[in-house]
């Protein structure tokens, strides 16, 4: 499933949007979530799950190919925790 499939779902549910508008609104939703995460804020979507930005400390890693040790700087990462309401 890709963005176009979500756009189709929006098109069918809303009824009053064109395909192009549906596509744009899906992109808008994802961009809103993304920009919030980029600002370091968490996004909690009830009934779906929450996206969190976590900070990782600097650590030692290895290049798996050359096995050379290297230092990895502190970084941030997005994690997702599914709502307990969604059973798959």
């Amino acid at each position: 499933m890709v963005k176009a499939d979500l756009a189709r779902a929006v098109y069918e549910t809303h009824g009053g949007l064109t395909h192009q508008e549906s596509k744009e609104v899906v992109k808008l939703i994802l961009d809103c979530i993304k920009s919030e995460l980029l600002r370091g804020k968490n996004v909690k979507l009830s009934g779906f799950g929450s996206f969190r930005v976590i900070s990782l400390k600097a650590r030692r890693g290895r290049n798996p190919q050359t096995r050379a040790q290297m230092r990895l700087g502190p970084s941030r990462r997005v994690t997702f925790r599914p709502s307990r309401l969604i059973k798959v």
Partner: protein
Amino acid sequence: MTKAQLVERVAGNSSLTRKEAEVVVQAVLDSIVHSLKSGTKVELRGFGSFRLRNRAARIGRNPKTGAKVHVPAKRVPYFKPGKDLKELINS
């Protein structure tokens, strides 16, 4: 940001009313869940992908009584941030 705030922002940045934005946001989330339920992964370019990961069965413990309980194997939704999101968040 909560779902209500997301709806608010979507309405503010489009020609949709708040009510319409709510319907649309919910449709998107429901479609993702529905797709995962049917075992199909969801790949959203520039954002990330949702897929299922298998969890093996294990012996758990009831934290209150200490009794061993069998926890069956299951599938859990997993989100993998896309390259774009991964890089942007560290810049």
